[in-house]
């Protein structure tokens, strides 16, 4: 027993050093991506978007004998070869459980897992990789804050301010907590154009301890003015969490510049695999929070009487984590960085402008959401006389994947007074040809329904 505890302590110390030395350790680093842009993160660099498209093997397949037109990246993105290779290579050459073994394979696996964390931290400009907690996805990251921070810090009557455009993942955890703890939920309104209404923000912030809003709407594409919301919330004494599931994959996000307290995102929407996501949290907040799930790896010592939690970030990572997926997400941020997030955002905005130019004049088609300058690459629409599910089924026959339904945002759909919407969304591999196919598909839908 004593020996075990000693081992844990030693191992725990070695873990700390692994994370911190990681960047200077040249062993087994996955080869860096071949850049598609010559100098990443410079706004006006020409990116070869056709070459980018070629990095995604799935886009070479056909669907119903047609060219695959994937316009559902808001739901999940496709994966570049670099990410597939990183995960494949891990399983073929390095697979071992991490943080445990003292043998070479386990050390290398741990090293890759922790280096990925460091690169993800740099991608959003976190001060330290200790502020990067691996979760399953953005949903779990939000639930972590609801369980760990909110249960400790909120008492009955305390307010949590959300918005009417939140995904169910940023509503239901708070409903659950409201039922359990008697906290009060308030909602920022959404106007006719799909923009948040901040006129009454200061008034709505009274008694609020946490503001949790989406950085970018998954239905309307609205990019919310978080640069304004965060300081005003802080001034009122509230912390701010951003649901960044849509923003981190598509925009440059700098957590230090934003001065945001918590930020949640999912790997699979940003060219990474499913099963891995991230909670970013300011170190002092995370240090003060109790653990989320209990089990192996999240402890420093365990006795029959109790346990001492591990240090950050492992305090919040119970059990064997998604090792290959974390390594895959590390490769994904390398890939996105090689192209440049500003370039990706600009590419998507150009496509959105082009799509709106083509779709807005179409007879019987109604587009929801703000103008192109206020949103990311999302076009949600209705065709008069045709249900969105029928639109999606007919487009599928044309090789075009779009989403139809309530998009996990039933309160927003109710607010907009629509039962369902069709949604096309863009990413770095989307081309004008894809938008043209969508326009032709809409015409075909109208022909079939005689509208």
């Amino acid at each position, binding site marked *: 027993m004593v020996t075990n505890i000693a081992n844990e302590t030693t191992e725990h110390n070695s873990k700390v050093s692994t994370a911190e030395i990681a960047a200077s350790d040249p062993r087994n680093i996955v080869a860096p991506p071949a850049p598609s842009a010559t100098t990443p993160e410079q706004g006006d660099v020409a990116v070869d978007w056709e070459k980018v498209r070629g990095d995604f093997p799935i886009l070479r397949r056909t669907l*119903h004998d047609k060219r695959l037109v994937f316009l559902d990246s808001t739901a999940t993105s496709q994966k570049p070869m670099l990410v597939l290779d990183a995960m494949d290579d891990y399983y073929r050459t390095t697979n071992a459980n991490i943080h445990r073994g003292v043998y070479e394979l386990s050390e290398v696996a741990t090293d890759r897992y922790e280096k990925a964390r460091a690169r993800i931290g740099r991608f959003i400009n976190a001060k330290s990789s200790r502020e990067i907690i691996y979760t399953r996805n953005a949903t779990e990251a939000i639930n972590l804050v609801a369980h760990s921070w909110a249960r400790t810090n909120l008492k009955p009557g305390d307010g949590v301010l959300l918005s009417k455009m939140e995904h169910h993942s940023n509503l239901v955890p708070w409903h659950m907590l409201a039922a359990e703890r008697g906290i009060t939920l308030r909602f920022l309104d959404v106007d006719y154009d799909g923009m948040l209404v901040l006129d009454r923000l200061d008034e709505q912030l009274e008694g609020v301890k946490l503001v949790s809003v989406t950085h970018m709407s998954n239905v309307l594409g609205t990019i919310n003015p978080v640069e304004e919301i965060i300081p005003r919330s802080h001034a009122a004494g509230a912390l701010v969490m951003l649901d960044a599931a849509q923003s981190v994959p598509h925009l440059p996000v700098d957590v230090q510049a934003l001065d945001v307290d918590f930020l949640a995102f999912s790997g699979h929407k940003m060219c990474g695999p499913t099963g891995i996501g991230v909670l970013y949290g300011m170190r002092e907040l995370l240090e003060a929070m109790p653990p989320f799930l209990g089990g192996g790896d999240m402890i420093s010592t365990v006795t029959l009487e109790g346990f001492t939690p591990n240090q950050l970030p492992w305090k919040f990572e119970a059990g064997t984590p998604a090792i290959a997926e974390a390594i895959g997400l590390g490769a994904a941020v390398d890939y996105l960085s090689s192209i440049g997030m500003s370039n990706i955002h600009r590419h998507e905005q150009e496509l959105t402008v082009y799509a709106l130019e083509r779709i807005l004049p179409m007879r019987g088609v109604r587009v929801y959401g703000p103008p192109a300058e206020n949103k990311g690459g999302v076009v949600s629409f209705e065709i008069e006389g*045709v*249900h*969105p*599910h*029928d639109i999606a*089924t*007919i487009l*599928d*026959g044309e090789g075009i994947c779009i989403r*139809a*339904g*309530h998009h996990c945002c*039933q309160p927003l*759909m109710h607010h907009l007074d629509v*039962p*369902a919407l069709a949604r096309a969304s863009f990413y770095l591999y989307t081309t004008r040809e894809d938008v043209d196919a969508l326009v032709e598909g809409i015409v075909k839908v109208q022909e*079939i*329904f*005689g509208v």
Partner: protein
Amino acid sequence: MDSIYRDEIIEHYKHPRNFGTLDEPDVHVEANNPLCGDKLSMDLKLHDGVVQDVRFHGRGCAISQASASMLTEQMVGARLEDLARTTRDDVLDNLGIEVSYARIKCATLSLGLLRLALVEAGLSLSDYLKEDDEA
């Protein structure tokens, strides 16, 4: 692929039979499709275990609307015991198309409504159906 939108489906969608509501129905039921948020309601007038009149109401896709339209056509004058034996395959046969996995719920939403109505009218469905025939 487009063949699921054959003329008869589109015709029922645009001109659904028995669409609307009934005054003072003997049975009123509602159901929704959680996949898309579509809601349908159904009203029945009954006499001696026979459907005298039926109406359905609500927004939905062409598949769910056509399916409800076709099903209600068969309900008028039918005995409740006979309707209780309606299976998922009967409803799919009505439509006469290959419905993909993702759209099965659309096709069977009206069958779910019918079954709710039958239970409301006092029938025990397990007397008439195999357990695995989900709607």
